[in-house]
């Protein structure tokens, strides 16, 4: 079974032995596909955690965390009991402390983008919304319109019309928005080629 090319790139980048990498995946799950998915889940979460702590290079720190676990995975697998994700989290905390000792947190350099700085995104959004199925397009436009109280009432009516609960509606709208965002990101990157894709 083939595995995500991103995983293969990471394996080479970290200079891990094939055995360590295989052991890491096997520790995560005996099924290789599920292990690959679990690996990516853990990596994304580590990036999010490092990012939310204000670390300058969350991707690098997440990879460093996985690298350290992978190098000792045979030993860990014999003795550690519990969710492997929590072991990664423990190592991530250690790496974060090391970073704090090495250097002060980077100064805040990014500010809120100007409210009129959205032209490129708007053009792509216009195109991507046109590619959404009609139901999804209506959902996004109706879910995110209105302000304050009108928004609450509007969403209740929308949920009733779709025959789902408010939280289910919230999740459905978010997933559509996520698909829309991925399309916009793809559009921004590939504006030259003009080909747009949805991930789902």
């Amino acid at each position, binding site marked *: 079974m083939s595995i995500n090319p991103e995983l293969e790139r990471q394996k080479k980048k970290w200079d891990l032995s094939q055995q360590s990498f295989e052991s890491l995946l096997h520790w995560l799950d005996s099924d290789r596909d599920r292990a690959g998915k679990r690996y990516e889940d853990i990596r*994304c979460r580590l990036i999010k955690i490092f990012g939310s702590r204000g670390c300058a290079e969350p991707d690098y720190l997440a990879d460093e965390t996985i690298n350290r676990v992978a190098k000792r995975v045979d030993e860990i697998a014999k003795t550690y009991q519990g969710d492997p*994700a929590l072991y990664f989290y423990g190592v991530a905390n250690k790496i974060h402390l090391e970073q704090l000792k090495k250097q002060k947190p980077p100064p805040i350099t990014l500010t809120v983008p100007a409210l009129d700085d959205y032209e490129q*995104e708007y053009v792509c959004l216009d195109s991507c*919304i046109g590619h959404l199925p009609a139901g999804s397009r209506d959902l*996004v436009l109706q879910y995110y319109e209105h302000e304050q109280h009108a928004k609450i009432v509007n969403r209740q009516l929308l949920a009733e019309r779709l*025959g789902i*609960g408010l939280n289910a509606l919230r999740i459905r709208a978010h997933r559509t928005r996520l698909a829309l965002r991925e399309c916009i990101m793809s559009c921004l990157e590939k504006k030259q080629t003009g080909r747009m894709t949805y991930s789902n």
Partner: protein
Amino acid sequence: MAMQTEEKLHGDIRQWLLGLLPQQESYSLEELLITDAALYEELHIVEDELIDEYLGGTLTTNEREAFESYFINSPERQEQFRIANALKVYIDDSKQDASDSPPLESSVAPAESRWTPFRKAIAVVSMAAAVLLIVVLGWYLLLVGSPSPSNSLSVILTPAVQTRAGGPVQTVRVPLGTRYLHLQLKLARNDYQKYRVTVVNSDGNVVQANENLTPSTDTGGPAVQFYVSASQMTPGEYQLKLDGVADGKFESADGYRFVVTPQ
């Protein structure tokens, strides 16, 4: 997960994203975030909501400051912000376009005459009458077309008990004029936060499936409630399969049976 716990988690995620959650609580939340798939999705939803609230000007002063000094300080969130801003403008533009649709009166102004004030008055009254008619008609259609106690038949079902003979089956006679069946499935055990119900007729065809149903206690004990159009429920036997949702997967929870008898 209890409602209060869900609300607290939501609040904690919000504070954590803004860098306002105390360190010890942050560690506890991060442990959950790295292991709980549903909570990770919630994190992304709250991120979007924070951005929308910032753009809508509804964050508190404290939250707004934290948003500007902490939350937005990553290239990924900067892009999220620009896209959210574009979406807001797009939706505002869509509403504007709708309100800018051509006026009812001709764009070519008729010659002024002594009848003009009367014509305008008649036009205003006619338009008001038309609007009123549309509102009343819409309200009537909504009333007739939506499930309500006056057009629904409430049916309380208990889990099917299987015996050698197949077990007792509840019978339902649907009176004329009934538009909906309001089915209330009593739960023997309320082990899930969300349920899926599938209604299957005697031919094995799925009549209706409803997902993301939340159990309520309106009818005494816990019950899952939903509506089925009466026109779909022709005389015959029906089976209802109730599945609980756990970690995004469906698990069989209960089964129900009933027979719709002819008028």
